[in-house]
């Protein structure tokens, strides 16, 4: 009963928030279309175009502090000069319900001011007693530098409106998002996204990162619909990075999110 209830609630909210961002983005209101880090693979793969060394990252998110419901994800980025490739794996659900996604992305930076990216995703959905189905979708994104400290980005997900053929009613959301990132100083970064999901609505997000000291950053953010508050922090030590975040939904509670990355 509890699970059925949760599915019901989660289908409503998760459809809008299916991007499942990394903890850095999540703690900043889950905005990040104009953000640049390894987890950009999850919301705008153009953000990996400036990565110069291979990076591997693992992430885990527990939804609404529920013991069963979680997301596990892994991303890997490897650059070959200007050509940057990314791999992402993502699993969401619990024993009776699971969504799995694997993606491969190619990103390239043109003259330092424009980054373009395309990503191919393979989705698999299985629901206990209902069967399973798979589908392929395409994402594309870009980031553009207005000035050294001001970037904009846009991302489109599943424009061809792919769907799971064997499980009617289960769709892969088609979305369009637009984001800005503004660096006020070496310590302060502000990002904001507008995120539109076809047939679902518009969300506005705002996030702030404050680099208190060189290896430690505090983050916070909000999103407007559904109204959620976010907070988190990041620690960097040599080549290791640890990011911790949590979102807070007024009725459903907290969703902690944790990720760890290593730069080769």
């Amino acid at each position, binding site marked *: 009963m509890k699970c059925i209830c949760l599915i019901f609630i989660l289908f409503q909210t998760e459809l809008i928030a299916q991007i499942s961002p990394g903890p850095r983005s999540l703690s900043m209101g889950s905005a990040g279309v104009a953000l640049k880090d390894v987890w950009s693979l999850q919301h705008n793969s153009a953000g990996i175009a400036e990565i110069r060394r291979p990076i591997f990252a693992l992430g885990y998110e527990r939804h609404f502090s529920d013991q069963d419901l979680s997301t596990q994800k892994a991303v890997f980025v490897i650059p070959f000069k200007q050509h940057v490739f990314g791999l992402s794996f993502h699993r969401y659900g619990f024993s009776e319900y699971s969504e799995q996604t694997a993606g491969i992305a190619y990103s390239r930076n043109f003259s330092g001011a424009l980054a373009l990216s395309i990503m191919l995703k393979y989705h698999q959905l299985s629901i206990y007693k209902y069967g399973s189905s798979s589908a392929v979708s395409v994402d594309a994104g870009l980031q553009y530098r207005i000035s050294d400290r001001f970037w904009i980005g846009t991302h489109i997900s599943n424009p061809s409106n792919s769907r799971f053929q064997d499980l009617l009613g289960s769709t892969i959301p088609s979305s369009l998002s637009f984001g800005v990132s*503004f660096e*006020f*100083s070496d*310590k*302060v970064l*502000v990002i904001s996204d507008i995120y539109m999901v076809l047939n679902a609505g518009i969300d506005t997000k*705002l996030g*702030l990162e*404050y680099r208190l000291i060189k290896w430690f950053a505090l983050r*916070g953010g*909000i999103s*407007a619909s559904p*109204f959620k*508050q976010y907070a988190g922090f990041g620690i960097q030590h040599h080549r290791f990075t640890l990011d911790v975040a949590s979102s807070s939904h*007024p*009725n459903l509670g907290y969703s902690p999110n944790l990720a760890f990355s290593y730069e080769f």
Partner: protein
Amino acid sequence: MNFNGKYFGFILFLLSIMPHIVCAQDDDSDIIEKILDILSPDLGDEQDYSDIAERLNYYRKHPIDLNNATKDQLQELIFLSPIQINEILSHSLENGPFINVYELQSIRSLDIESVNLLINFVKVTLPTSFQDLTFKKLVQKADHDIMVRIGKILERQAGFSTLANSKEANYQGSAWRVLTRYRYNFSNSLAASLNMEKDAGEQFFDSSKNKGFDFYSGNISIRGSGVVKKLLIGDYALQFGQGLVMWSGSGFGKGSGISTIAKQDFGLKPYSSVNESMFLRGASGTFKFRKLFFTPFFSKKNLDASTTDQGKEISTISFSGLHRTKSEIENKSRLSSTIYGAHIQFNSKRLNIGFTSYQTQFSLPFSIGKSLYEQYDFRGNLLTNLGINYDYNYKNTYFFGEMAHSKNGGSAFINGIMSSLSPRVSLVLMHRRYAKNYHSFFNQSVSEASNPVNESGFYSALSLKFDSKWDLFTYSDFFRFPWLKFRVNAPSSGYEIFAQINYKMNKKLNLNTRFKQQVREENSEGIITHSGLETVDKQNYRIEISYGINDRFSFRNRVEMVRYQKGNSKFELGFLNYQDIIYKPMSSRLSGNVRFGIFDTESFNSRIYAYENDVLYAYSVPAYQGKGVRFYVNARYTLIRGFDLWLRYSLTSYYDQITVGSGGDQINGNKRSDIRMQIRYQF
């Protein structure tokens, strides 16, 4: 003073950018209006800003000397944040005394906008020798300010009907409003004030019982620099900590700027407003012993109240100060309250800690309301309040908070952080938790509900200055009400989102857009939901453009829309559009402004509040509601230096309405017009 080259160069640099700032100076009332507008975007018309306006006007005329400025003085300017105040005060300690006000620009946390506002209220002078007080000087060198304001609604209201004068609900006095005030100031060290007021419908020299005005308020106060910091007899206000325990007089909550959310307490203040209830009457003083400030207070004052049938218990207190009908007159001063207590504050450069305790005794006990939501309201006739407040400044971050407890009741907490992350980015985070049975009659801390009780919430705000032209202010607030409320028969929650973008194209053109969304829960109407509540979603959209045509005329145009939706029922819209014309020549005796507005709101729910210009010291933020047009003209004429006249006429004309207002205020017809005249003489 010895200059080195670098310092001198810096001054030269500042002087070179001075013209830019000098141009940005506005006229008195403009600046004060701007500040009040920043502080109070959507407050209802019940708020009274006259005391703040008066204080700002005072400092406009008598600027604060930056080299002798005190924290209190800077706090009184309202628009500065605690971080900014601390940096201004420490600037002269670190860099030597100010030589020019434009040095303010080198203070990290002061943005251009704040500097532009601040330079209107400060000056730089070299230290003066001690002034000896003689009686002659007290009279001659002092400022006197006498003001008389009268006004009335021109249409006949039902309460003034002559047909049935004996009726219970009829107003006993005339329709005129009269306010007389006198201010005396001697170089910021000795002050006196007197207010005498009569509201519309109140008796005035016209009955055997009432000889004179309906409301008198006055005080004499001394500001010193020794052991006695302040001493006051008469009517006063007390503002401590974050307002949980004791905050009388005006207080602001969630405004459209970052400076108001962390309250800056003034401690003891002379009371100068015409609000007839939220003040203390008696004596108080602030005494300084090294780093300790001790403020004992005593007050004995009557309140208007209605009693239960037997007349032995109080059912409600009225704070309106209106004594028009027989029953209102009967309820006048029925209840007597005695308040005594003290506040002790430890002040160091960075850390301030205060402790407040006081007791309130009422002559009659409070009865318990019958409804379930009133279960935890105050009862009895004795209330003891305790509280601890703190603030601490560390580098670019300011911590503030207060913990309070009412005896035999609950506790309340408020804690926050304000940080200027960079000169262009400021952040505020604030958590609050007020128990459902926490009681204080002088509680004005930040809250969503009108009373800061039965609420918990988290507020976060971000202010971004992208460059000298663009800035953004945004806040979000999530709140819960753990116990029932009026018209909310279950525990409920909600949130508020606010965002404002300001674009200052040049000194003549300013563009402002604003969005506000408020989501709350309320009892459902008809539809049965599992909690009995429905979501109420109210969204405001606003665009305002102001532009100067030439050095005499400037225009201001606002379009505002409200969308109100309850549950799944059809949404309703409210719409307001107005055009202001402001005439303010550089050196003319006449100045003024005109508004022409159109409004169309489907009901009370989609009403729109808008700030209106008024005669000096009067400020109103009325609700525009229904369908109609609004017009006002407001003029000031300076007869001779120090002698000013104001005249204001306003008219609201409604479509499809045969009456305006309700109860005793009802007018037969579709128009309501109001006239107001004011004379001020300063010498």
